[in-house]
């Protein structure tokens, strides 16, 4: 695969007709520039951060798992799901790239981050990253180094916490004008 030459390359995989390239967060900008200039991915569709906290543990999605999943020879495992493969770190940030050309192609550029890790801003490579990164900061709490305007975009400026994180309590947000104020 030609994408193995991406700077900071860690691994690549194919699933459901999609290609995923995982790179080291420190080499993200070089990787993105390489994909844009050498591979023709001139269009950033989307930035999707995902929180994998409690991934594969019971009760998050309401399922019970065993490592093997359902086993016909073991009684009482009929409804069991296989526990999903472990993830390297807590957060994944997915950059969905598209090549607007006569040979359209898509690739998912992926970096893995721990809770306190930041990643470089993509604005110099694709200006459209501006609001996508602000949304990722607002809802998921991913910090983007070098972003000139990294503030909340969908929630109030004084909102506490990042709601799309898996440890954000459901129903815990204050209700305004509830009569108790």
């Amino acid at each position, binding site marked *: 695969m030609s994408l193995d030459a991406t700077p900071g390359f860690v691994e690549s995989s194919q699933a459901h*007709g999609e290609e995923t390239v995982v790179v080291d967060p420190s080499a993200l900008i070089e990787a993105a520039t390489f994909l844009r200039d050498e591979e023709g991915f001139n*269009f*950033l569709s989307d930035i999707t951060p995902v929180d994998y906290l409690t*991934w594969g543990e019971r009760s998050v999605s309401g399922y019970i798992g065993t490592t093997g999943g359902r086993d016909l020879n073991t009684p009482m495992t009929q409804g069991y799901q296989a526990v999903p493969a472990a993830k390297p770190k807590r957060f994944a940030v997915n950059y969905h790239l598209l090549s607007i050309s006569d040979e*359209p192609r898509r690739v998912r550029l992926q970096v893995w981050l721990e809770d306190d890790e930041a990643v470089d801003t993509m604005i110099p490579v694709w200006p459209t990253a501006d*609001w996508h990164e602000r949304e990722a900061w607002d809802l998921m709490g991913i910090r983007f180094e070098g972003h000139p305007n990294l503030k909340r975009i969908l929630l109030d400026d004084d909102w506490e916490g990042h709601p799309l994180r898996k440890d954000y309590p459901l129903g815990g947000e204050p209700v305004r004008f509830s009569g108790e104020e």
Partner: protein
Amino acid sequence: MSTIAPTRSRRPIYQGTRIPSPIPTVLKTTDELWATGDVLTVNFGPNHPSTHGVLRLIVDLYGEDVTGLEAVIGYLHTGFEKTMEQKTWWKCITYPERIDYVSFQNNEYVFVAAVERLLELEIPPKAIWMRTLLNELNRIHSHLVWLGTSALELGAISMFWYAFRERDQILDLSELVTGYRMHTRYFQVGGLAEDIPRGFYPEARKFCDWMPHAIDDYETLLTRNKIWLERTEGLGLLSAADAIALGQSGPVLRASGVDWDLRKRQPYLAYHQVDFDVPVFPQGDVYARYRVHMEEMRQSVRIVEQCLDRLENMEGEPWIADDRKVVLPPRHELHTSMESLIHHFKIVTEGFSVPEGEVYTAIESPRGELGCYVCSDGGPKPWRVKFRAPSYVALQATATCMTDALIADMIAIVGSLDTVMGEVDR
């Protein structure tokens, strides 16, 4: 076929680049202008009839010149993505429709398509053609709402009544098929929720016969209208390079001269089997966006007609996949089959499980590339759902388009980006 001659414009195609720096989405007033003391900061919105919802723009004015601009959004944020993580897959289908409430059918489809890709489900041809048909009807619906409201904002009040007259016909068709006028939840994972009612085809034919005449009427009112031309031509310029850098898609991108339509380039549903053209206008101004919208409606009518040709010969064919682990069993079987009853109970209570994995599915919604990222951990609820909302991205181009514009043109320019605030804020 269009009865209107191509645009008479001979102006050169704008190719410059003027994305503001360092923040690509904020236009900043220069210090020299501030020093004059004549700059007035105006808060436009969030409650203003011409902001297509609750968009707030902080505008710096120097006389009538817009010198600074920042968009503030989030007033409609309802946390759809978080909510969907708490619902089973098949309950989630109702949410995407409400994200972009004008092109609900396309939103519904993109989520269902993403789940189907994870499940690797085979969809029966009848469902594929009907989905194509409804997506195109919905495209006309969305463009009509855009046309009516945008023209209304520029003072062409009568356009609103005409556009909404035809919009109502589409909603009538929607009601005929699905029982609901909007937010239909007609697409199930695996196909369609119900068979297509027999009376639908003649009614849809009637609409297809009428719609091209209606579009001719709209164009007679606007396309060569002196006032309309004055208000739209040469305004809100966006070059092809800027449009791609800013992630623009759909009519905005095609009005900047980029021949890009996912229905042609990465075909989904039945689009590789239907005959249609992709309108591209190179001027990159508000007028070009208007022309793209008008031409797309004509093309959508063509697609709907071809879908009807196919569907009329599919009487009696299945409309949903026969996979009892995912699809609800037919109602009549519940009275006679224990197995069906168990399947029904499992799907309704626990929901079906979707294999572990992640997909990003993109379709050409009326507003551009509508993407849906879905991640599953193998359970009955999504681990993460994310929508790539074309309106959200389109609004990022506001600052670039508004460079050197006048305050009166702001309405035309923001309107031409065709944003739906429900989708922007999600």
